[in-house]
């Protein structure tokens, strides 16, 4: 057991854990994006999904705790490796130029890989804002009786919030542009038959995730939600009054 912990805290072990947690978080992103694409389908369907999700009183807290632990581990290891990596080069170069860009045709110039820590921190800041909006309700809290769709519509219609969400989701995509395929290499998966495919899939994955999530603030920008942001949509207003007026 101690040898296992020692191995996982080596440079290679830490990168293995970063790869696993990173890919697991990618899995969450797929589920999260799929659910939110219901914003396009309609208020009713979106609210039905949100309701079904929140009525999972046992599974949801377990999944959320797991997700939280994955994120904490990924961030902690990201900060630790970044610090160790900076320390490993104690004196900076006066001049530094990439040779990947200059001379090789083996891979596209991988700018994203040089900015993983910064893009990670930006994603983290965006996540805090996002959780503040939708999970904790501490940022710009709305009418507690509003439907999930109305709440999302209201938040995504705020001008500054749109910018924050646009930036956050695009930077997440940039993180994944390198991160997705990098995780496979960290896991030791590099093979002439598969690596090219993994890289192409990683590129498509990162772009899909970024554009998918970024489309929601863009919807807001284009006024998709106007008229839906104040009172609950028509479908709900029929059921709403009984809930608001206590019997007797």
């Amino acid at each position, binding site marked *: 057991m101690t040898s296992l912990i020692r191995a996982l805290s080596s440079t290679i072990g830490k990168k*293995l854990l970063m790869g696993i947690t990173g890919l697991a978080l990618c899995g969450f992103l797929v589920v999260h994006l799929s659910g939110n694409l219901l914003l396009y389908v309609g208020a009713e369907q979106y609210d039905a999904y949100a309701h079904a999700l929140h009525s999972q009183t046992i599974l949801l807290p377990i999944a959320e705790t797991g997700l939280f632990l994955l994120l904490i581990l990924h961030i902690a290891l990201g900060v630790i490796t970044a610090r160790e990596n900076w320390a490993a080069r104690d004196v900076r170069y006066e001049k530094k130029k990439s040779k990947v860009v200059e001379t090789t045709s083996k891979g596209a110039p991988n700018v994203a890989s040089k900015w993983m820590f910064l893009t990670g921190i930006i994603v983290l800041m965006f996540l805090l804002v996002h959780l503040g909006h939708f999970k904790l309700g501490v940022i710009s809290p709305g009418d507690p009786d509003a439907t999930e769709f109305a709440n999302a519509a209201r938040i995504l219609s705020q001008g500054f919030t749109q910018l924050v969400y646009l930036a956050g989701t695009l930077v997440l995509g940039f993180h994944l542009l390198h991160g997705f395929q990098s995780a496979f290499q960290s896991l030791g998966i590099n093979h002439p038959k598969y690596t090219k495919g993994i890289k192409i899939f990683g590129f498509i994955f990162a772009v899909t995730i970024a554009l998918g999530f970024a489309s929601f603030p863009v919807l807001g920008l284009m006024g998709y939600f106007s008229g839906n942001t104040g009172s609950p949509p028509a479908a709900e207003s029929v059921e709403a009054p009984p809930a608001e007026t206590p019997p007797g």
Partner: protein
Amino acid sequence: MSELNLTLKVWRQAAHDAEGEFKTYRLNGVSTEMSFLEMLDVLNEQLIAENEEPVAFDHDCREGICGMCSLMINGQAHGPDNETTTCQLHMRRFRDGDTIVIEPWRARAFPVVRDLVVDRSALDRVIAAGGYVSVNCGSAQDANALPVPKQDADKAMDAAACIGCGACVAACKNASAMLFVGAKVSQMALLPQGKPERTARVLNMVARMDAEGFGACTNTAECEAACPAAISLSNIARLNREYFKAVLTSPR
């Protein structure tokens, strides 16, 4: 044959614990047929004639096989060419009037000894931790006694091309030695002679690598691009696999 007039910005540092600084030198009439190290020889002749200390730099074979030469040239390990050591880089790669910035490898694990010379014995200590096979001495056994698949022999040979110059460490934003260690672990893991000590080898070499203060791998591929021996990134993936396998199956 044409000649170049160059401005050289060279890192000067009298000793390991001395303060270093960049000094700028003018060097005229450099033949484009000189190698980069021959150009530095000419600079040193000029410095000696002016009663100045010559620039210390590492070199030995000057034919691209020993791994002694180094140098960060205009921000690139071994200069701008692919699969080329500094000793094999030629001045025809530069233009008249160019300014060339010349720095030593920079890594916490590679302390500067003097000027452009750094101490790369951290790599030797990684090798000493397991980068060998223990064999009984005596007459060599018959070459065909141990069958080795052609593909494995090729991959082992490609990994064994590493000359241990440290360009991978120098080029990596994390000063990571993963390409070096990947090559040295791979060349033995792929061959039957390396199998008996396979598990202990990778565990000990990685432990030594970490203890020497090299960084982790972010998979940016700068090492692969800088490597004069064209060591492939797939060796790092193999190192990772070897390490996981060893961790899970080692008796300790």
